[in-house]
């Protein structure tokens, strides 16, 4: 059951760390609490908020029987669960660094992500790459976690900009693959620019 609830573990581990008298104690405590599959997630301090800005980490649930879309939805749901602690939602996300296990999944990943983000009128900036491995790994014999995201969210209003991309209206590559990210998101003094290529092969 713990395995199935991996998406909720980051918050749990975070709470454990904050209620322990010493962080080293909490690490040891966590190692006793969780099996090696979940220990990986305790390397992250998943969500922190400074001023108006929240930094969070979200991975998909480790489950071989889940489609990539299901993993993306689980990951985003995990992210929104963390954001809700700060009265934020997916609308507050301004920048994302995405990792996927197979770059050939990018179209499917982008499509699922865009489906989840429907309603967001100014999609976050994004940089995506293929990672050799994604944390949490769920154990050495488990490589079913196919995507993760590191996100920045803020209460500061996104500046209105002509290039903003709305979920559901993303530009497409000639093969129909969607590109669900805004080129730039500016909030107050800070602007986040999406990863881009000259070759035009995807971004």
């Amino acid at each position, binding site marked *: 059951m713990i395995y199935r609830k991996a998406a909720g573990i980051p918050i749990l581990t975070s709470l454990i760390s904050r209620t322990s008298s010493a962080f080293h104690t909490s690490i040891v405590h966590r190692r006793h609490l969780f099996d090696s599959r979940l220990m990986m997630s305790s390397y992250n301090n998943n969500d*922190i908020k400074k001023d108006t800005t929240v930094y969070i980490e979200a991975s998909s649930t480790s489950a071989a029987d889940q489609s990539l879309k299901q993993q993306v939805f689980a990951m985003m749901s995990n992210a929104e669960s963390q954001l809700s602690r700060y009265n934020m939602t997916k609308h507050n996300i301004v920048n994302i*660094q995405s990792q996927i296990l197979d770059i050939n999944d990018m179209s499917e990943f982008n499509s699922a992500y865009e489906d989840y983000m429907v309603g967001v009128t100014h999609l976050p900036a994004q940089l995506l790459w293929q990672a*050799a491995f994604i944390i949490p790994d769920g154990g050495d014999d488990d490589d079913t976690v196919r995507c993760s995201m590191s996100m920045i969210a803020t209460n500061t209003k996104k500046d209105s900009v002509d290039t903003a991309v709305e979920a559901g209206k993303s530009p497409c590559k000639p093969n129909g693959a969607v590109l669900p990210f805004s080129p730039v998101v500016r909030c107050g003094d800070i602007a986040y620019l*999406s990863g881009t290529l*000259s070759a035009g092969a995807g971004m």
Partner: protein
Amino acid sequence: MISFAHYYVYLVHNLRTLSSQGGMNEQVIATMDRLGDWLNSVDMSWDNVVDVSTVLADINDLQSFNEAYGNYLANKNVKFCPAQTCFQPSGICGQDAGALCEIAAVASASPKVIMSKDKAVAMVEPKSGTYPFSPIIKSGKYAWLSGQLDTTGSNTIQQTQNLLVKVKKILDTAGLSIRDIVTITVIIQNKTDTDVVYTELIKFLGNDEDLPHISYVYPESLCLCALVEISFTCRTEGRK
């Protein structure tokens, strides 16, 4: 100001004229021009860029990337190079169609704080013969440290310890403390080394219960064959 329609047409044009975009220099120029357009759309320019994340299709292209990137900044009269983190992931977007690099950036409207001349923090001017990144850029309430690595250590533990010594010196010289760190990005060559890097990081952070946000990347290769690279973002008013 560029319109969405302009961006879309530009994008589609690029998609169709792909594969013949030339070598690293041409790709870097085109990519940075596009980022420049995007910066202009929010009333900024390359001078406002404080932090750059670069992923390379092949880490062996690092030198040619650095030359092209540094020359571009110099040609745009950018006074100080942004901080930068660079690595080769297992794959980048468009790699099968000839993409050699992808660049993302963070920009700040606040002026960059001029650092002391101390080598640890001296801001780097883009010119030939120098690595085109500054060790740290302070702007507004935040500071961005370039990805730090060490190649003198013979294993991941030693490299982590050595690079954290460098980070401490950068922070001290820049008037920051470990408690100002808000995010850490750890890029580790071997996933089995995660535990030892994490342990060193926790020592470095002083067993603070209020840890920074930590994220992990497992790449194909790191610059200079390093085993670990770590970048930091700080909030100049403290993490608490």
